């Protein structure tokens, strides 16, 4: 008898915990606030950029709301952390789409996260804006529900190859982390090098969770490269640089600027990092949008991702404005190119753009990251790049071109 009671209490107790923990159902308002979702890497390998990407979007939302919102409706941001992990990203996106019913998900950073989240978005007709560069992303069957403000792998690979040749590399090796961009980059760099008289002599793809890459490095060094492209993220590139030093490698090193950043330079001794080149897509440092954002975020040297997310939310809100307040993913899809490019008045802020739209005028938004003109599959048409080199623990700017 007592056994049955304890069982019942156990189950009842569990039910009570669940009931107490339940979040009350969110009010669903038609014509109420416009809900937009942000999904950035607040933790994980991209954790350096997620918080400032979010801040940029929060600033734009604040500016828009202060000026009266979009077609009279306030913008409400719901923010989630994708942890730079596709699993976590999918769960967070599910929540944003199913529970918060956002019109757009903005700011996914890692290519693997974007690839995982994209099908959820286009299937639920939610608009997705991303800063991920992998070619494979815009080639997904997204039916127009995806745009990205980062140059794709084709463009980036070509710039890397051009630069490596320009500093005299003849035998290039690539050490890439397992990610959607690994193999496409290899292919493009290989082709470009061949065209310009160089050669891709070795390419190894490694697992991102290891504490040493000694064997992979041995494999690559056996081909005697004079330049190594370290195509990974900060945590694994840190280990690779250490192991390269131990292995006695004295050739050139080049990496993406998001991997070899100031934080990495601070964590490693200068003998290990000196001479490493970095390339990054460059924001439009001369544009008024950039200057305004830099001022708002309190930094002279904005990372490219925050500039891009600034443009993401601006584009989404302007598209909704052009659609006369229809805050749905489909409306954004249908109207975004009408405000991002074309023959309208050039604007560089969402607030100014919304004002003109309310007067019935057409606009062409140029953002902090670049002109923001997209082709049919969601890629940007062009952008500038920034070339730097690590010297004694600091970066020296070589050129922006």
């Amino acid at each position, binding site marked *: 008898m007592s056994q049955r009671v304890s069982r019942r209490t156990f189950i009842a107790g569990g039910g009570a915990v669940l009931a107490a923990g339940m979040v009350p159902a969110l009010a669903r308002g038609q014509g109420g606030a416009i809900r937009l979702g942000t999904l950035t890497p607040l933790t994980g390998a991209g954790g350096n950029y997620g918080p400032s990407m979010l801040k940029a979007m929060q600033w734009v939302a604040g500016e828009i709301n202060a000026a009266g919102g979009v077609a009279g409706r306030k913008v409400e941001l719901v923010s989630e952390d994708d942890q730079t992990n596709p699993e976590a990203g999918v769960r967070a996106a599910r929540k944003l789409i199913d529970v918060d019913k956002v019109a757009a998900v903005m700011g996914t950073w890692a290519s693997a996260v974007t690839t995982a989240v994209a099908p959820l978005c286009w299937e639920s007709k939610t608009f997705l804006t991303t800063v991920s560069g992998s070619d494979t992303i815009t080639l997904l069957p997204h039916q127009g529900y995806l745009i990205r403000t980062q140059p794709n792998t084709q463009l980036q690979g070509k710039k890397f190859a051009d630069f490596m040749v320009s500093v005299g590399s003849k035998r290039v090796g690539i050490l890439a982390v397992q990610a959607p961009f690994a193999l496409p980059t290899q292919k493009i760099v290989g082709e470009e090098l061949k065209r310009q008289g160089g050669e891709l002599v070795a390419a190894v793809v490694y697992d991102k969770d290891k504490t*040493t890459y000694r064997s992979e490095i041995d*494999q690559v060094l056996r081909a005697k490269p004079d330049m190594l492209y370290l195509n990974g993220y900060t*945590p694994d590139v840190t*280990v690779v640089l250490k192991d390269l030093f131990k292995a*006695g490698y004295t050739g050139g090193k080049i990496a993406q600027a998001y991997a070899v950043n100031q934080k990495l330079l601070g964590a490693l001794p200068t003998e*290990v990092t000196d001479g490493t080149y970095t390339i990054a897509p460059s924001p439009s440092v001369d544009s008024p949008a950039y200057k305004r954002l830099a001022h708002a975020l309190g930094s002279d040297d904005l990372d490219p991702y925050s500039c891009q997310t600034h443009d993401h939310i601006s584009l989404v809100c302007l598209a909704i404005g052009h659609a006369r307040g229809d805050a749905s993913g489909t409306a954004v899809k249908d109207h975004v190119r009408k405000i991002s490019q074309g023959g309208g008045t050039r604007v560089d802020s969402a607030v100014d753009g919304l004002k003109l739209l309310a007067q019935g005028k057409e606009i062409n938004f140029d953002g902090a990251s670049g002109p923001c003109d997209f082709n049919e599959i969601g890629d940007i048409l062009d952008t500038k790049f920034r070339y730097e080199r690590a010297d004694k623990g600091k970066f020296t700017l070589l050129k922006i071109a």
Partner: protein
Amino acid sequence: MLGEAAQLALNGLMAGTVLAVPAIGFTAIYAVLRFPNFTVASHLTIGAFAGWVANAALGWPAALAVAAAFVVAGVAGVLSDELLLKPLRPAGALTTAIGAVALTILLENALRFVFGNDLRGYDLPIRRDWRLGALRVGPQQVENLAMAVLAMAAVFVFLAFTRMGKAMRAVADNPMLAGIKGIDADRVARLTNFVAMGLAGVGGMLVGLDTSIDPLTGFRVILSVFAAAVVGGLGSIPGAVLGALAIGVGEELSLLVLAPAYRTVVGFAAILVVLTLRPRGLLGERAY
């Protein structure tokens, strides 16, 4: 090709010697307490972090930090066993083994709670490898080898010449007879846990000294530890050493044909092969 194999064999011998340290711990617990204690994985990590705190946060030299790793992991081992696993022993070896898996998850997450997921390096200078002809070996690897050998020598001396060591061997051999002779099984169990988990902790730190550590450090090498113990014969300490060398070299040589990510598969395959062909392993006695 021969040069490559020689380099790999050298790497393997060094890795295997380090692997032997936690393998001895695992097999010792099996011999005395008669269940596979999977919490060796988390104690490997506990030792690695204890050593890191000693070295990077408190500034101790490596050798002293290793001693700290031993003590902290050993104490953790005794506590976790006394409080959490010992009450399960009456329910049988399999229940205790399941409890051990739950416990290892608990401990690993406790470390994650305190230290987070980021990789951490010890506060040691990064030195270029030495070259001996066509072979290259890292100075840290050599130091690790020395510390591992020292640890193992200490274990052998302990078991062969001290009273408590002999008591441990007696209980492992024949618990009933040992009880009749007046050996306190509980004390022996506690000591076994202390030494075994301490060794696991030392192993964890040695693995991390050359690379970096994170909460998954122990989990990454655990399959190799099991393989070493099984190949050598579960319950046999000399077997664990032999098994560890075999697994270490085997994993490195496998790089001639397999991608680097598949090293742990070698351990798994070794376990399968041994259990099919010679279940008692190289030096073990019972598998049934």
